């Protein structure tokens, strides 16, 4: 296509037009060229360092029970438990996934912002005029949100991998970070970060309002944990066995069940149940976001 405006750049344009890879790169450019993504990443790094420190103190207390707080016999039993191969692996896994419980909130909120900032800044019209195939745009955003979640996980894991060996050494315990227990926790942690990034994007695509989406995201995440006391009360009233494991229906509880190396709460179902429930929410929200964005008017 000849450029009428004497454009050297357009003369070299690749006329194959829009492709999913180009759109994904455009989404990364959008994230890179504003402060929000960097702000979230900075906060995440600071938070992870803080979580590693707090987690380190917590694990130290488990390994070296304080005199007076527990009886000598209890202290011996506790030390023996945590210094067993399984206990050491659990400590290593907990260190390697430090801050995950709240760290995923940053991935969740970034996912929300990736889509809602288009509506908050009225750039949605520009985006969809440039690429009228809206489903392709949303799929690129979903992929970008997943990649951002993975990036947060990578940064958190690198920080943990730097801090964990010196900590284990200082506690006079040795554990292989390449062992299955640790590797499983780290990989499920990756799945959680990716899932929450996509969850945020789906939620933002459904609600569109940035303020409403951020409030809803935090409410859903924090509110999920309310299922534990609610079902405990219900169990005490109705004595139905299934109620003990039912809190897993809260998305954040499902995530915790999936990633936790031990039971996330008493009578928690197996990790795969949490994983399926979390992924179910993510798929449902992403599908709803896609369908609504295709159908709704951009005004």
């Amino acid at each position, binding site marked *: *296509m*000849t*450029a*009428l*405006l*004497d*454009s*050297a*750049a*357009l003369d*070299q*344009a*690749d*006329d*194959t*037009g*829009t*492709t999913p890879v*180009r*759109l994904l*790169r*455009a989404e990364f*450019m*959008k994230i890179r*060229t*504003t*402060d*929000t993504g960097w*702000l979230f990443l*900075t*906060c995440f790094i*600071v*938070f992870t360092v*803080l*979580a590693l420190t*707090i987690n380190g103190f*917590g694990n130290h207390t488990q390994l070296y029970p304080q005199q007076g707080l527990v009886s000598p016999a209890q202290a011996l039993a506790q030390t023996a438990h945590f210094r067993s191969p399984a206990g050491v692996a659990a400590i290593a896994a907990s260190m390697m996934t430090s801050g995950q419980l*709240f760290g995923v909130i940053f991935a969740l909120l970034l996912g929300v912002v990736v889509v809602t*900032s288009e509506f908050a*800044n*009225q*750039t949605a*019209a*520009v*985006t*969809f*005029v*440039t*690429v*009228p*195939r809206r489903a392709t745009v949303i799929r690129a955003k979903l992929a970008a949100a997943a990649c951002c979640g993975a990036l947060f996980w990578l940064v958190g894991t690198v920080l943990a991998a730097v801090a964990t060996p010196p900590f284990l050494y200082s506690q006079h315990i040795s554990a292989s970070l390449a062992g299955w227990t640790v590797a499983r926790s780290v990989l499920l942690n990756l799945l959680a970060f990716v899932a929450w990034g996509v969850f945020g994007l789906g939620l933002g695509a459904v609600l569109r309002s940035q303020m409403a989406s951020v409030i809803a995201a935090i409410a859903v995440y924090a509110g999920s944990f309310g299922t534990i006391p609610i079902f405990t009360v219900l169990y005490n009233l109705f004595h139905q066995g299934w109620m003990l494991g039912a809190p897993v229906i809260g998305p954040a509880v499902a995530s915790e069940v999936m990633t936790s190396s031990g039971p996330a709460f008493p009578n928690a179902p197996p990790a795969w149940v949490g994983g399926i429930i979390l992924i179910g929410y993510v798929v449902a929200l992403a599908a709803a976001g896609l369908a609504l964005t295709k*159908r709704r*008017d*951009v*005004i």
Partner: protein
Amino acid sequence: MVVLLAAVVIGGLVWLLWLVRRSRGGTRPDHARTDSAGPGFPGRPLGGKRVSPALMSQGRIDVRGLTKEYGGVTAVDDLSFTVEPGRVTGFLGPNGAGKTTTLRMLLDLVEPTAGTATIGGVRYADLDQPIRRVGAILEAGAAHKDRTGRNHLRIVCQSAGIPLARADEVLELVGLAVAGNRTFRGYSLGMRQRLGVAAALLGDPQVLILDEPANGLDPEGIRWMRDLLRALAAQGRTVLVSSHLLGEMEQLADDLVIIAAGRLAAQGTVASVIGSMTYLSRTLVRTPEPEKLAAVLGGDAVVTPAGDGGAYITGADAVAIGDAALRAGVAIHQLVTQLPDLEAAFLELTAGKAAIR
């Protein structure tokens, strides 16, 4: 306790970073100023190529029976018009007449309830590489406030498969090269409009659809916009531009599409639309005996004082007034026919069509 501590620390950090961001942005005004881009923004002349006649036919905009209902309100009601290439077409209507909804339906942002809107016979969504065919401005404020103008354009380039260097070319074209690396938050309204034009021209499109592009521009900016749009139309491009600035539109547009309450009120060249309102014309007469002249005119003629010794006469043209004055022996010192301007024609065409429905 630990969670509470973490929450406090995170909250503090977010607040601190927000403060830093605010203070960085504090040197730049958040509000949109109405000053011009200034003498430092001359812009670059357009290239001299023309759209080939074969390609021009692909630039015709055709709207047929377009209807949009929101709830119980019909925003656009069975609207049909055609926009020809090589001409500037003004799209006029009162607030709430359905202009923006129509333009958004044309760009596939809003789904019509009925009817079609095509460009070169093809729906916008079905165009191959739409940004290479159609450029649009829908909102002057349509860029992320914390993103630089240059990055805003580069993102559009990246999405559309256009080399990123094109962003610098269009920035220079609209005279924003020196401001390209400043954030959108610090742009005046005039600069925002120029950035919108730059974005619309990224794909060197044959068709331009511009919603209120002159809003907030100062006289120099308005003249720049007028010259640019006329030059683009002279190259054979289709230029459809909505505006409230009727005086400006009278100078800029070749054709007009006027809508009111979602329906077509008039379409044609500027001259033909105004010409169809000749009944709005009046004659200014200066005579020492206005009462005597009024008495001999009789019939439908209505005489109203002009305030400076003259009188406006409607219901009789200059010939009839001159003949009547001659017959009655009334001296005439001045006799001027005043045709309606676009504003008068517009107000007449849209009178009584409530903007708020």
